[in-house]
């Protein structure tokens, strides 16, 4: 089984990446916009905040800048898609690839350590007086919980309602006077703002920002969303978003368990996780088809 220490670690990771998962939920499920920008905007948030923090800015300021940078990255993907009519997937890949170069420019090198810098985690440990492996998960849970509540509130506003409708029925929402292009640009921007904030938390947690830390973000995000939907259901948007956040935690626990598996000489390494996760997503995406196929065959 999994130790308390590993369990708290999984909560820590699950909530830090939970912001990213909420962002992925917003694009994939709400806007129906498959967005791969996140593989670039996660390290973007990490890079921007790391540079800000190591230059002596308050970590909250660094995180604020990270959100803005992520928003701009997402908005660019939205503009490429809506104004220049580039397919959404391709538009997001173009932004993601550009961000690789940009992130190295921002840091001045491919990675950057935060050792010795005064991060939000350090400040919270001091404030709460708890041991790090308790205080950090609490801090991250507070932040992602607040983001979840904000997102739930947002999607209940008039503007948020229009965003929900944009993904469901773009023709209808246009005929009700909503500029669909602006909705997509804003929505993908908002999503990537959250992903960048996630990156800023992860960087402070790992004590470093790395240009390659974003690889596989989208797959981990999708896997978390799907796990959440499967385990906790999605009767409405509020529940579905809560499920996505919980899915993120379950996903990280599953990974911790997978890393503990020993079969003779074989053991998973962290670098195997992208393959395992991708396989998981494929199974989740294909299983409804297989299920309905089996049912049909039985009926015939």
């Amino acid at each position, binding site marked *: 089984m999994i130790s308390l220490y590993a369990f708290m670690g999984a909560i820590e990771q699950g909530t830090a990446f939970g912001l990213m998962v909420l962002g992925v939920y917003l694009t994939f499920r709400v806007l129906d916009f498959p967005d791969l920008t996140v593989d670039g905007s996660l390290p973007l948030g990490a890079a921007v905040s790391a540079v800000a923090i190591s230059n002596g800015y308050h970590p909250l300021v660094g995180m604020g800048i990270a959100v803005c940078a992520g928003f701009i990255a997402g908005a660019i993907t939205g503009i490429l898609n809506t104004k220049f009519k580039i397919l959404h997937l391709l538009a997001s890949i173009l932004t993601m690839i550009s961000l690789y170069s940009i992130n190295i420019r921002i840091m001045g090198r491919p990675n950057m350590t935060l050792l010795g810098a005064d991060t939000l985690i350090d400040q919270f440990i001091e404030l709460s007086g708890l041991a790090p492996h308790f205080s950090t998960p609490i801090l991250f849970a507070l932040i992602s919980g607040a983001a979840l509540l904000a997102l739930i509130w947002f999607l*209940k506003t*008039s503007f948020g*309602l229009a965003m929900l*409708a944009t993904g*469901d*029925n773009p023709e*209808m929402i246009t*005929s*009700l006077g*909503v500029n669909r292009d602006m909705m997509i640009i804003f929505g993908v921007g908002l999503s990537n703002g959250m992903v960048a904030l996630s990156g800023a938390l992860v960087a402070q947690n790992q004590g470093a920002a790395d240009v390659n830390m974003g690889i596989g973000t989208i797959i981990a995000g999708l896997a978390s969303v799907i796990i959440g939907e499967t385990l906790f259901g999605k009767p409405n948007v509020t529940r579905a978003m809560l499920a996505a956040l919980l899915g993120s935690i379950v996903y990280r626990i599953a990974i911790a368990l997978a890393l503990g598996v020993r079969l003779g000489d074989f053991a998973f390494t962290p670098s195997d996780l992208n393959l395992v996760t991708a396989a998981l997503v494929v199974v989740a995406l294909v299983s409804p088809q297989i299920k309905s196929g089996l049912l049909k065959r039985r009926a015939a």
Partner: protein
Amino acid sequence: MLKVEGAAKTFNPDSVNEVQALRGIDFKVEAGEFVTVIGSNGAGKSTFLNSVAGTFMLSGGSISIAGKDMTKWPEHKRAANLGRVFQDPLLGTCGSLSIEQNMALALKRGKRRGLGLGVKARDRKLFQAQLETLGLGLENRLADKVGLLSGGQRQALTMLMATMTRPDILLLDEHTAALDPKTGRKILDITDAVVRRDSLTTLMVTHNMNQAINMGDRLIMFHQGTIILDISGKEKKGLQVEDLLERFYTLRGEDVATDRMLFS
């Protein structure tokens, strides 16, 4: 209310697939007029309604609504003053949202959508009152997802949503064609009642000659991208399907007798 001058629309210009869907249409509708629109498949009826709504831009000519030239306006900007109902009941509503959420979206037609609560308590009263007029029992199902409703119920809801802000122009494109006859009749009754109650300027496309004659105050017929017939007033009231067919074939210069056999 609606003034169209020299409206032309060519799809895929300068290619083998070129289609001249509208060929210079001049057409004026007064405020409060209810116009029924007929014409064979591909005559340009939907293209005309779409050009009014701004789904695409005209290749030539101009469109003004309520005195404003909207020829170059994008669809979402024109939408403030336009209500639309399509043939497909799925097109007019969001299946994943509740009845009240859909109605709240329609209530904000053309208005700024801010960070206030999307569905307000006082709106619910209004929605319930409006749903009651449909007589479908939907007033007790405000929180139900629209995806659970039947095609007819969805179309009735779309009808409400298209008219609840009293648009300058109401565009109906074969909005009962996908429904069974009984439900279709119900939707037509609702249409007539709402259009009369609010004196809405309306264009209604239909393939049913009887509907076209019995509803509205004016009837126009499209043929190959032009309006070949425009009947109103007394003349329309006394119209018979027979007369209409006869005039249609005379205008087309075809033999009435042989073609009429196809219709009977």
